[in-house]
């Protein structure tokens, strides 16, 4: 059932030009960044004389592309997640889902899976693009895997937050703005509390947990953080919709 709700969401995204436009624009941005990074690699490395200054091509290009990707997702996810529930509420199509023999959890998780599936198309494309480096260099696929996994988990967290804000309002734009502000605040926490490793607020930061993935490290603590983050907001969304249903 979750799959059917997810299919419905994907169909809606691709039924309008918006899905295609977002995919192509983002891929264009990542592609440009990739080309630039490859060019820069030669310029920088030919200037670096000592072996300690040299880094591998995977890390150099990967960090540049995935850095941009995580930053762009900060804008892209709110734009995609904003309409998931608020739009249905505004056009009064929620009863269609509520009256079908599926539970609220299935609806919410289905929507979440649909959005993450859409975004993972991008993640797969980025990984495929970086893998082409392997044609003339020997690249570190482990690094790519860690980064892809990190990006996927982060996007999942973003999406869950976006769906929650989308369930709070009828106006997609408000949902997008709220999601963006919340995500931005969670990113910024690291700026303010990053120096002190014992600070609790600092460890809530999304950036900090993405950083270990970005350097190629798969840490179970970070995986758990993102999963808990997503589960928390999905649960809140289910509760929110349940309150709606009871009030009619």
């Amino acid at each position, binding site marked *: 059932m979750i799959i*059917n709700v997810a299919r419905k969401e994907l169909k*809606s995204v691709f*039924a309008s030009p918006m899905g295609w436009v977002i995919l192509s624009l983002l891929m264009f941005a990542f592609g440009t960044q990739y080309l630039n990074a490859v060019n820069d690699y030669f310029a920088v490395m030919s200037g670096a004389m000592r072996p300690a200054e040299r880094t591998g091509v995977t890390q150099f290009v990967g960090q540049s592309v995935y850095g941009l990707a995580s930053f762009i997702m900060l804008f892209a996810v709110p734009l995609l997640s904003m309409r998931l529930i608020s739009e249905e509420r505004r056009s009064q199509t*929620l009863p269609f889902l509520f009256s*079908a*023999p599926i539970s609220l959890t299935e609806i919410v998780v289905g929507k979440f899976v649909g959005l993450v599936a859409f975004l993972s198309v991008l993640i797969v494309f980025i990984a495929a693009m970086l893998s082409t480096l392997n044609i003339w260099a020997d690249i570190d696929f482990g690094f790519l895997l860690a980064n892809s996994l990190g990006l996927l988990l982060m996007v999942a967290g973003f999406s869950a937050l976006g769906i929650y804000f989308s369930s709070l309002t009828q106006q997609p734009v408000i949902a997008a703005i709220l999601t963006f502000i919340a995500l931005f605040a969670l990113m910024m926490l690291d700026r303010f509390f990053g120096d002190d490793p014992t600070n609790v607020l600092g460890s809530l930061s999304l950036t900090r947990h993405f950083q270990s993935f970005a350097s190629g490290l798969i840490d179970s603590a970070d995986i758990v953080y993102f999963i808990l983050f997503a589960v928390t907001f999905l649960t809140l969304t289910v509760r929110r919709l349940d309150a709606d249903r009871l009030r009619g």
Partner: protein
Amino acid sequence: MVTYRKCAPYLPEMRPLYKELTVDEYLTMAARLHRVSAKNIKKAVENAKERCGLTHMSKRLIENLSNGYQQRVGIAQAIIHSPMVVILDEPTVGLDPIQIRDIRTLIREVGTDHSVIISTHILPEVEMVCDQVQIIDKGKLVFNGSIDVLKRQRVGNKLLIGLRNPPAIEEILRISGVSEAESLANGLIRVRYAESAEPAEAIVQAAVQQGWGLHQIAPDQTSLEDVFMQLTYQEQLAV
């Protein structure tokens, strides 16, 4: 909750249509969400489209359909998994007269295979499409019975007569079967008669013989609205 939803689909007043999808896409999705098994989906969609007269609209975007056709898509969505009961809320709101007629025919048609529950404020519609009526006022059931009972309440034993040169009321009272007569403000005369009597023919004969200039005679029906008012009003008095 889930089992209840499995047997009773619901079409609310605001049609829950995803307007960016085509009719086929939307109905396929509805079938999937209502747990129609994968191999039966195509058949269910074709069947629902055929019954609702949507076959030639399959590839059109729902957005571009007229109101009447959108309503058909809504009904098709509700009957796609052949449920036992279909619930329709105000199915003809916002449609033009021809569309209203078509939708009512469709509802009757759907009613042959499924039980249909309609909630509506349009009383003539009730008379046209329903077999069983319940009137609810302020959360209380004030009427529950077949449509015939409601219709009988309407008819009453009254005739409305229009005469060009009306005689005195006493003249009319003298006709056998007539128990009461009164002239109304608009020049018509309302005649009450006993339960078993059929005075219409006698009145016509008397009118012809005595040259009253009869130009209209009809059963005086209370409108359904009046019956409805009475029912809800009585309830208020009782409280």
